[in-house]
């Protein structure tokens, strides 16, 4: 169903014809008003409310109501109580983003340069996982990695896994699921970036006696950086906040910060603590994204 995603990613490729002159007057504001009002009311205001909630008096309760006491210790408590899930979220997300990059680059490269008339078919194949439900797909991994399934059997036969070794309910299963679920978000921006590369530049590098590897490292890779940066962000951000894979493929030992936030909000009903965890996650991601984008030298993306 998300063919649109591919079109959106691919649609920006190519030259852009002259845009019509932008009109003056109040028409623009009228068109903007309903949509932007929606985003202010249901995205911006809630985010401010989340920060406020994270500073409420932790001794209050949902029934009695919370008092605003600017209790910054909530943050310290959240960090010390849930250090492991926080770290796990960042590590799992980083590992699965790295794996997704390793898998996605050859695929995007093949689609951009080697696919010929199979290009459209391969692009549809990339977004095919979106054609069925996220949770049903994740549960399918439970069947694939199950204790008597062929993956475990093969690994046991190769003595990579011990005779009682299992994949399900381990970090390996959670990372496999995370990598799988966000892989298309890595492939599509990479493809869009590679597709734009002028092949004459690669030919020129060959003419100047660069071998295949040097030409890739000095020409193709730098030119695909915008897609690489966009892809890693589009994979890392949802993976860090995800808790479906940890819940379905792991055990409480694999729980990520999303599991903690969900249960604090819906089971323990500890709103200030839950909100503090959410804000910390958001700040951690914003900080990492800013540092990463600076490093990669692609500020114009933001």
């Amino acid at each position, binding site marked *: *169903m*998300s*063919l*649109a*995603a591919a079109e*959106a990613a691919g649609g*920006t490729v190519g030259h852009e*014809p*002259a*845009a*019509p002159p*932008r*009109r003056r007057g109040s*028409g623009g504001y009228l*068109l*903007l008003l*309903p*949509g*932007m009002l*929606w*985003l202010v009311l*249901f*995205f911006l205001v*809630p*985010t401010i*409310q*989340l920060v*406020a*909630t994270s500073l409420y008096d932790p001794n209050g309760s*949902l029934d009695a109501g919370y008092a605003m006491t600017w209790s910054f210790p909530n943050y310290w408590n959240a960090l010390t109580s849930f250090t492991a899930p926080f770290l796990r979220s960042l590590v799992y997300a980083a590992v699965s983003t790295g794996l997704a990059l390793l*898998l996605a680059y*050859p695929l995007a490269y*093949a*689609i951009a340069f080697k696919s010929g008339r199979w290009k*459209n078919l*391969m692009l549809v*194949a*990339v977004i*095919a*996982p979106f*054609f*069925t439900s*996220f*949770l*049903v*797909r994740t*549960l*399918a991994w439970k*069947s694939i990695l*199950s204790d008597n399934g062929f993956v475990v059997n093969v690994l046991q036969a190769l003595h990579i896994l011990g005779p009682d070794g299992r994949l399900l309910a381990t970090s390996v299963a959670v990372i496999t699921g995370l990598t799988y679920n966000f*892989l*298309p978000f890595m492939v599509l921006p990479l493809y869009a970036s590679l597709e734009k590369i002028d092949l004459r530049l690669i030919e020129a590098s060959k003419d100047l006696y660069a071998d295949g590897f040097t030409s890739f490292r000095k020409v193709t890779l730098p030119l695909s950086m915008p897609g690489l940066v966009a892809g890693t962000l589009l994979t890392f951000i949802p993976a860090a*906040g*995800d808790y479906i894979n940890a*819940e379905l493929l792991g055990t409480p030992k694999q729980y990520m*910060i999303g599991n903690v936030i*969900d249960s604090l909000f*819906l089971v323990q009903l500890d709103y200030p603590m839950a909100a503090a965890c*959410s804000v910390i996650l*958001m700040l951690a991601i914003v900080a990492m994204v800013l540092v990463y984008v600076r490093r990669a030298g692609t500020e114009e993306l933001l």
Partner: protein
Amino acid sequence: MRAGRWLADHVVMMVAMLVLLYMFLPIFFVVLMSFNDPASRLSYEFDGFTLNNWLDPCGPSGMCASVVKSLQIGFLATLGATVLGTLVAFALVRHRFRGRAATSLLIFLPMATPEVVMGSSLLALFTSAGLSGTLGFWSILVAHIMFCLSFVVVTVKARLAGLDSSLEQAAMDLYATESQAFWRVTFPLVLPGIVAAALLSFSLSFDDFIITNLNAGQTTTFPMYVWGVARKTVPMQINVIGTLMLIVSITIVLIGELNNRRRAAAR
């Protein structure tokens, strides 16, 4: 030497095929498991072939009701997000206004925020407004329109920015009024972008779990149903629904492709 050359030429393609295989493996299992006859209540393995899941898709209590709920929310969220987002896209491409940078930032941020943060923000807002007892269909709808909106703006904007404005000018030169030029020339040309945005919205809404779960109250959508049974006994019928979604999606893709071919042939 020649074999090495062939290998070097094709190794990327072979790796790519293996990656595609990895992406298809779970889909294959969804279809396979829709014919599974589980040996025990907690089995996740393929134990035997049966057509029973397909003959009785609505067997598990509450499952089909949750699918209907997801379809209703999906349609309404798509309608809302597509209309609001298309208007914003037109404003961004065709009009001058103050605060363009702030507007673009506000559209970009929801796409870069983890779902769990957006979901908990909305829950914090609804609770502080005293609405926590009323959460359900309406709050899910409000949330879905919010997170689909940005994707609609980006998709429609890309299409609109790629339009050749000389076509519109030609229409005006041929004495079309402004509204005629819009409805007969501009709108039909932007329509594929709007349709793509609507399909994207629908699949985002239908598939959303994290934001929905935090703001659903007592309402159960299909992803929430799957989440609920995943902790207990998983009825194989969820794979029937998964396979049906696959069939519908592939049909839509095929229709789109046929349309493209026909248009290309007409040129």
